[in-house]
């Protein structure tokens, strides 16, 4: 360990206590990356600079202390909680970074069933919060696949979205107020109110900042009644994606708000639905929920719309409810995935984008065609739409490839980045957004200027204003 690293560790120990500064070599290596480099990780190859330490913060004051220390000494800080990031956002791009881990800040501070909001620290796993509020007959309405593992801080920092977003919205629609610490140690609290018009909505400086502006230490989210007994699951096969998008659009523009509205293409659908869907068909899925009357009306409205499209054929709803119950990713699936990758060299990657109704099918078709034509060793390429809005929807590209004739450290450059490039290029060409809900991380920063266009001015201004020394997660969102 160089003197520099030793000094950093010493400084951190002074702030946090010796027990809370992790310098274990294995943990440091694993903390230099996130799931973006899981192929390297599985092969025990670590190409990113190894951080000096993982700092386990237990309080807002400790977070402020660490940030002040880092800011003073120009040390790069990578903020993390549940570690489920997929886009390189948790990579320590700079030698001797400090990984500031808030998973120990795991207290639920208040569940206010009257005002329908809950406050918790950043390290509370979403699943824990959800289980607790369900004891009150309530739900957060937030249900990303990472729910068993992801924590509230990280979910907020990456502008996450859940499987029920079409009804409940993304995290930005759920966050009422929050507490965040800026690099100079300033602790800011945004109070919890239903709405206000007191200038710009500054919550949006914090939500989705991916640790590049501040560290989120506490959030307050809305709560909703939990009424699973009213859920109605609907599933249909459909001949083409174009018709599928059309059905999704009609459901949205006619004013229905199912919690789940999904469209799988044949390739992606085969991974989930081959036991009941004939080869070559796409699959439409809806879940109607809420108060019984609304759920019923929503389901009936959807059925009426689908009935206008004779190529849609209904499937038994228990297939859909069973699939839905096994959708989330816990440690078991992660372990099985590692075993698969290690043995077969076959790896699954995803890239999620969005576009309006007018272009989404073009983005889908062109990107997919190019991936299949231009990228070697593809074993599956497909995708699904899983989050719809009045003016458009997202496209979640899902693809697998065999990593052959290259070392673990070349997997990203040989396969993943070229695929991301195709998807981003096609999305930008049609005026869509290059990231829908995983965050930009470091993986898609090459296209961030094109994404923002003239509004990049605002993004740069935020960075200059709040992180003038550039110590917050270098290389994430804003290219290094």
């Amino acid at each position, binding site marked *: 360990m160089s003197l520099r690293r030793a000094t950093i560790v010493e400084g951190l120990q002074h702030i946090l206590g010796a*027990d809370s500064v992790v310098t274990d070599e294995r943990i440091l290596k694993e903390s230099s990356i996130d799931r973006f480099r899981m192929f390297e990780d599985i092969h025990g190859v670590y190409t990113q600079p190894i951080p000096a330490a993982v700092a386990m913060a237990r309080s807002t004051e400790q977070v402020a202390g660490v940030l002040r220390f880092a800011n003073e000494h120009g040390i790069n800080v990578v903020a993390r909680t549940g570690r489920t990031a997929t886009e390189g956002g948790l990579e320590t791009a700079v030698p001797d970074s400090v990984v500031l881990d808030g998973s120990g800040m795991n207290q639920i501070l208040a569940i206010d069933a009257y005002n329908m909001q809950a406050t918790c620290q950043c390290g509370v796993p979403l699943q824990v919060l959800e289980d607790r509020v369900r004891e009150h007959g309530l739900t957060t309405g937030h249900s990303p696949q990472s729910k068993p593992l992801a924590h509230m801080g990280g979910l907020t920092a990456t502008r996450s979205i859940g499987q029920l977003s079409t009804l409940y919205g993304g995290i930005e629609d759920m966050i009422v107020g929050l507490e965040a610490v800026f690099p100079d140690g300033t602790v800011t609290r945004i109070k919890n109110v239903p709405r206000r018009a007191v200038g710009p909505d500054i919550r949006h400086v914090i939500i989705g900042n991916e640790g590049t502006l501040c560290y989120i230490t506490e959030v307050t989210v809305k709560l909703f009644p939990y009424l699973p007994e009213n859920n109605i699951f609907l599933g249909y096969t459909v001949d083409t994606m174009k018709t599928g998008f059309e059905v999704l659009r009609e459901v949205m523009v006619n004013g229905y708000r199912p919690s789940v509205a999904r469209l799988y293409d044949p390739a992606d659908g085969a991974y989930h639905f*081959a*036991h009941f869907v004939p080869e070559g068909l796409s699959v439409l899925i809806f879940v109607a929920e809420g108060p019984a009357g609304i759920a019923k009306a929503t389901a009936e409205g959807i059925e009426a719309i689908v009935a206008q499209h004779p190529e849609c054929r209904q499937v038994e709803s228990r*297939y859909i409810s*069973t699939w839905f*119950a096994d959708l989330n990713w816990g440690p*078991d699936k992660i372990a*099985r995935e590692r075993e698969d990758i290690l043995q077969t060299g076959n790896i699954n990657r995803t890239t999620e984008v969005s576009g309006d109704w007018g272009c989404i099918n073009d983005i889908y078709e062109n990107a997919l065609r190019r991936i299949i034509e231009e990228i070697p060793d593809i074993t*599956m390429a497909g995708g699904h739409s899983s989050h719809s809005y009045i003016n458009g929807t997202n496209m979640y590209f899902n693809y697998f490839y065999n990593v052959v004739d290259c070392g673990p450290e070349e997997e990203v450059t040989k396969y993943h980045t070229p695929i991301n490039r195709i998807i981003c290029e096609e999305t930008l060409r049609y005026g869509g957004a290059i990231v829908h809900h995983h965050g930009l991380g470091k993986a898609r920063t090459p296209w961030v200027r094109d994404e923002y266009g003239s509004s990049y001015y605002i993004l740069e201004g935020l960075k200059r204003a709040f992180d003038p020394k550039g110590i917050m997660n270098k290389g994430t969102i804003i290219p290094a």
Partner: protein
Amino acid sequence: MNAVRILVCFKVTPDYEALREADWVAGEGGGAHGSGAAGGGTGAASRVETRYVPRILDCFDESALEMALRMREAAAGGTVPVELGAISIGGKEVERHLKTLQALGYERVTRVDTDADLDFAPTVTASIIARYVENTNNTDLLMLGWRSGPHDGGTVPFLVAEELGWPCLTQVTEVVVLSSDRVRVAHVVDDGVLRVTVRLPCVLGVGNAVVARLRVPTLTDRLAQRGAPVERVQGGDLGIDVAAELAREASVLADLEVIRRDRPGVIVGGESPREKAQTLFDSCLKSMIEKL
């Protein structure tokens, strides 16, 4: 030189991990092929409802499929050609896997077409496999998982071997093709690992091989095999009345019991790994370890 002709039998089973804890009850009929046990079983009380979860390759069968591919690659370095065939019994859900195997280089792929629920019918399964091998007369080495499916009895490899009059080794972990009529096999027996050279033909039941996952074909591989035929065979083609055989199965699953595995699950608190370890040690482990 004559080729070694390998036939791998595989079963497509429900992915049990996709079932919720509450699903583990004797259900509304089922098995891999939908409602009701078509003969043999005694119906709903003896099946877990698994129709609604995805299908996967049974794990030991998957091992066998990959091992056969690797045996060919290893043998290709020498002088022994290896031909690969794969067979499965079931409905259309099986064809997806057969097409994958074609794309991976399996020359012959066969589906024995039946809707009968053979989940707990090892005797019927074995006689279908044996009749197919006899009728086609082009198999030197039959490989399959040493146990599979919800029954998991480990009897099918031996039953097939009995039907064919072939030797049988199970819990196989490694196979190397030595020549056109000999393979070297490592397999786990009750008192160790036995390596043995076997003169073909023979049946091998694959066990805990380190080779556990089947490789994945590229889209290009699939395209190249798009039109390749999948052989479909009916029980009748093999001289077997599947329903009648099923009714004769001498060992029948009558009903199911749920297993409970609860323990107290007391959470050991503490601020750091060190503190938690110390608490666990002080509160329980210390006295236990002293007694060991």
